[in-house]
């Protein structure tokens, strides 16, 4: 009761279906090429136009190659899917940022960049990492393609109201410990189902101290704990971040809207269905060892042993370790790796590139490593070059690729070969996620940079 989630949710209720879900108004719908074609087909077969086309923004990101974007996409199936989005956006009169547009990028990087995601909004997309936009204080969550069609048709969705959870993280993060490590820590503590059914509010000193990009990373990973979404109440950092962005309110409208945004916080008397507390001191740089994001350890720790796993989970645990080629109790620091991926909606922003560059500056990429550095958008790419980070990275033997989701889920040709290890700043390490047989180790940009220099799993603090 009286939580910020309640305030935003309740404000957007159009009606409550008797003995059923809530009909919730949606301020913003984002569409990418993978989860929209069937929704547009559905609209077409019903003879409908989009109810509120101005509130819908489309861009391809999953299939886009990260090189030679000015040439046609080589894979005809990928090309068709991207073309289909472009044609659909045109037919239905929706804003579209194509591959070569300076506005293109990963949808969850572009939305906040352009001020399309704002405090107090309800935001959806056919993509589970839609939770990212919660960082600006929006109720933002992933939906299926049928639900995308619902929003196109009515600008509303039918949803059960989730329960509310507050996660407080207190203290101060140590050197080399980032927002990504905080998220990986929470996923290990809560597991991939620990927040299912809940909408999470992140709070506490650590969250207040985080930059906006840190908060974007943290909220991005809410889905990996099973949460419906996760957000941070807006504060002065949020307002400073949003001021002047293309779609942010301007002039008198800005002042008026700001007054409203300042009311967006949970009451002092707010009661959450669940409240959890964590300490920054317990969080070190993290890596995953298994095949779901919750199977993680501190970088100085060892893979768990079988006796620490519940009987019902042992079959899955053993299957995971067999896939990854790790043993129970094994120390992973010093383990040789093959690929490093910096990018994705989780860690493809300018601060992530700054962090990576700061660690590799003056050093050289290890010979055994293939590294893919993929900016989250053309805006991020521009900033990388304006700050001279491209020179630092190139001097160390790294090349910067073109924006897109890339190796996060390997729908384009950035695939990790079977049996190879990748240290990846993305969000999922499921079997085959980065390519059939690929072995993914999730980590922060600093851990990824350290591994790229030494060629093995390395504590970045040893190089700082």
């Amino acid at each position: 009761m009286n939580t910020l989630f309640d305030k935003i949710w309740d404000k957007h209720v159009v009606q409550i279906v008797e003995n059923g879900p809530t009909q919730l108004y949606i301020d913003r719908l984002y569409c990418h090429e993978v989860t929209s074609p069937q929704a547009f087909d559905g609209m077409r077969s019903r003879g409908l136009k989009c109810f509120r086309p101005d509130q819908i923004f489309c861009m391809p990101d999953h299939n886009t190659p990260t090189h030679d974007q000015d040439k046609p996409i080589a894979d005809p199936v990928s090309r068709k899917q991207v073309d289909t989005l472009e044609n659909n956006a045109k037919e239905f009169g929706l804003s579209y940022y194509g591959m070569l547009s300076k506005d293109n990028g990963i949808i969850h990087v572009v939305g906040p960049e352009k001020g399309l995601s704002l405090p107090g909004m309800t935001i959806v997309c056919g993509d589970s990492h839609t939770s990212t936009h919660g960082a600006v204080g929006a109720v933002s969550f992933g939906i299926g393609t049928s639900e995308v069609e619902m929003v196109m048709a009515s600008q509303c969705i039918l949803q059960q109201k989730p329960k509310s959870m507050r996660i407080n993280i207190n203290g101060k993060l140590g050197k080399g410990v980032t927002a990504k490590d905080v998220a990986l820590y929470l996923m290990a503590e809560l597991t991939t189902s620990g927040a299912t059914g809940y909408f999470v509010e992140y709070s506490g000193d650590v969250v207040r101290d985080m930059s906006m990009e840190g908060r974007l990373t943290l909220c991005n990973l809410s889905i990996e704990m099973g949460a419906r979404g996760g957000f941070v109440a807006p504060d002065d950092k949020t307002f400073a971040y949003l001021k002047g962005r293309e779609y942010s309110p301007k002039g008198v409208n800005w002042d008026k809207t700001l007054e409203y945004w300042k009311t967006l916080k949970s009451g002092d008397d707010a009661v959450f269905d669940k409240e959890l507390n964590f300490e920054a001191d317990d969080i070190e740089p993290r890596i995953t060892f298994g095949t779901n994001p919750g199977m993680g350890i501190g970088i100085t720790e060892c893979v768990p042993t079988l006796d620490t796993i519940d009987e019902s989970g042992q079959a899955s645990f053993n299957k995971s370790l067999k896939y990854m080629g790790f043993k129970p109790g094994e120390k992973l620091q010093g383990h040789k790796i093959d690929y490093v991926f910096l990018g994705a909606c989780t860690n493809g922003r300018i601060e992530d590139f700054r962090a990576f560059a700061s660690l590799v500056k003056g050093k050289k990429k290890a010979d055994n490593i293939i590294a893919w550095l993929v900016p989250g958008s053309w805006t991020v790419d521009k900033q990388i070059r304006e700050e001279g980070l491209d020179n630092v990275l190139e001097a160390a033997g790294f090349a910067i690729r073109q924006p897109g989701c890339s190796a996060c889920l390997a729908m384009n040709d950035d695939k990790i070969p079977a049996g190879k290890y990748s240290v990846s700043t993305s969000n999922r390490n499921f079997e085959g996620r980065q390519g059939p047989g690929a072995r993914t180790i999730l980590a922060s940009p600093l851990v990824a940079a350290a591994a790229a220099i030494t060629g093995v799993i390395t504590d970045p603090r040893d190089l700082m």
Partner: protein
Amino acid sequence: MIKYKAMKQKFNVITSKCVPLPLENVDTDQIIPARFLKATDKEGFGDNLFRDWRYDKNGNLNKDFVLNDPTYGGCILVAGKNFGSGSSREHAAWAIAGYGFRVVISSFFADIHKNNELNNFVLPVVVSEDFLSELFESIKCNPKMEVEVDLPNQTVTNKATGNSEQFEINRYKKHCLMNGLDDIDYLLQSRDMIEGWEKKNK
């Protein structure tokens, strides 16, 4: 494989053998790998259900995987807890429905996937952990045993042991499943109410 349009069928009582998948945290990348998401329609996903578990890297059938074992069959999938975690891809529900499953039984479902199943007329049945482990045991002892899922009465019965449980389902969704209705028709009827909300709030 079943054509997509046929899936929007009314749901009443289903009695069937079960396919057991006693693994926890089965994520949607396993249910339908990303390379199959490039489709622009809803057809053919059943062929690729659990693709990388059904087939080895040379494209041969993996004899150890339950879907390739003729001992097991039926339109009910029984899975370990936290089924459908990870990506929101509705393609996972299309694959499950396209293969021919009409019910998935587990002790826990990930939220988005559960909704996706309901929107595709696949019934997710949540049972207690005890019921689930007993069910896995029953299937192991006799792969031909049957389960009855009664949607109107919201009961699921292990016909080998006779044990039964009530399961939860949202009344509105139950109505949709029993009558072959989807949400969009409902939303389209409420246009005036939506415009009323916009006038008041925007």
